[in-house]
């Protein structure tokens, strides 16, 4: 493609430390999870699976893991159903107010997490929903719906709306149109949307922190609380699990991108979480 171009070795070499800076801190949690001592040192002095087995025997960490998975389950189901139906409903239609509706659907992405956290905190107290994982799952669903909406909308981009009308005019009912026209097209979008929703929920900390209770403390909240006292190998085990989830998400995304031969299409969707 670019035959006459020099290889730009100097910028490549200059970028190596930046790539290391970017990637290595994420990966060091994996060896740290296998630290033998009670306190963390890196590189670890001796390797052992003590922290890993200790993590899975620890009541508090297991309850945090279960809270996280429950919240993520609620978020994924709601996000995929509502984001998916919204994308199908808006596909190929122009009407006054469409921009406003799209804006509303995407709005949760731009409101800072701490603002949402405070709003949810006051709201769930006022309706008496406290002390369970459900409000956390619902709050995460609010955050995740835009991602599912965007992934499904992206998968619909190649579907000519006239195809839907042809199917209808040939006698297909609403259900058949959904089953045989829309579903095959949006399936990758639904999978990607579910993945994003899961990633958003499993990493989300601020809202879960505000909505936490003794029975509903998610993994990141437990990590956040523990980090402020001590850096223990169990936090590293939890981090290693989250990195594994991240890697799986990344692999799926890379496969999608390669299959579609389009990096650009997934670009706006590459941000599963936006609060640090």
């Amino acid at each position, binding site marked *: 493609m670019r035959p006459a171009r020099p290889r730009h070795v100097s910028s490549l070499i200059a970028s190596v430390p930046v*790539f290391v800076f970017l990637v290595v801190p994420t990966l060091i949690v994996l060896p740290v999870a296998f630290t033998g001592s009670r306190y963390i040192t890196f590189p670890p002095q001796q390797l052992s699976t003590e922290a890993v087995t200790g993590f899975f025997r620890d009541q508090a960490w297991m309850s945090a893991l279960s809270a996280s998975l429950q919240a993520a389950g609620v978020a994924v189901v709601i996000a995929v159903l509502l984001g998916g139906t919204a994308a199908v409903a808006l596909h190929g239609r122009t009407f006054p107010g469409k921009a406003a509706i799209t804006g509303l659907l995407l709005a949760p992405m731009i409101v800072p997490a701490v603002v949402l956290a405070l709003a949810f905190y006051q709201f769930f107290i006022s309706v008496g929903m406290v002390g369970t994982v459900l409000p956390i799952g619902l709050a995460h669903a609010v955050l995740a719906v835009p991602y599912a909406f965007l992934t499904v909308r992206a998968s619909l981009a190649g579907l000519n709306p006239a195809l839907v009308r042809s199917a209808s005019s040939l006698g297909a*009912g609403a259900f058949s149109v959904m089953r045989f026209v829309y579903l095959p097209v949006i399936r990758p979008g639904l999978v990607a949307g579910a993945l994003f929703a899961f990633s958003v929920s499993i990493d989300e900390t601020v809202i879960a922190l505000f909505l936490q209770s003794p029975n509903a403390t998610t993994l990141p909240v437990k990590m956040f609380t523990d980090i402020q006292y001590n850096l223990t190998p169990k936090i590293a085990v939890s981090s290693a699990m*989250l990195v594994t989830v991240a890697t799986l998400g990344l692999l799926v995304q890379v496969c999608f991108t390669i299959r579609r031969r389009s990096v650009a299409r997934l670009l706006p969707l590459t941000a599963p*979480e936006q609060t640090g």
Partner: protein
Amino acid sequence: MTSTVTPAAATASASAGAGAPRRRRRPRGTWLLLLAPVLAFDAVLFLTPLGKLVAASTHDHAYQRVLKDPLVSRSLLNTFEISALSTLATVVLGYLLAVVIWRRGPLARVILFALVLLPFWTGVLVKNFAWAVLLQDNGLVNTALQGLGVTDAPLALLHDRFAVVLGMVHYLLPYAVFPIFAALAAIDDRLELAARSLGAGEASIFRRIILPLTVPGVSAAGLLVFIISTGFFITPVVLGGPGDMMIANQIDFYARQLTDFAGASALALLLTVIVSVLVAIYQRILRAGGEYEAG
């Protein structure tokens, strides 16, 4: 929007349906039925909580009160300083990564993109924890510095502004790479070839062609990164000290320590207004660039 009905296709399908003996058209209201659940969900669980937040902020002269609080002005100043510093560093490093990825072939691009995307998929706590491990007194960075003879005693690297900015740049870097890459990818290859055939060197090609053409991408990246920076909450707590609290931490302090919900809500709305203005500018830049849709 992604697609619109072409008039020709619409008439074609309408006339095809007109002559059919048995017309079972898709009921007109189906799409409204599909849209209703998400609108109801957002009305109850998104707009209502935000509405309550707005209502709460109007009580007890909250705005006058928080704006007079010296802690609030301090945290606003911190937010601006930390965000500006992080944004500057992120954009410079992001530009370097974007250029390097752009210069490679298709396969190398996918691999390098994957390296950028892995931290993107990782949550903030994992990254902050990793930095805390690296920067602690007996961490890798201090061990290396002592090994190199730079310092005798471990340096206190953690719990200061340097650690916060470092953690934030690490978190934000991928957000800068993508818009800048999109701007680079939009450059017509022939411009560079033409410049080279006319005798331009690498430096002048970069300065006079590539840099000017990527200004919209860079400003979009900078604004996006700045927007995300202003909402940081976790990193200042985990990596920062007491003097590095940002506006999000101040909201948390009002809500959970002082249980002053009116004050917390007023601050939250202040942050939302600032972010919304920046987002509006960001979308204007994107539309002017026309390359990279916000979603």
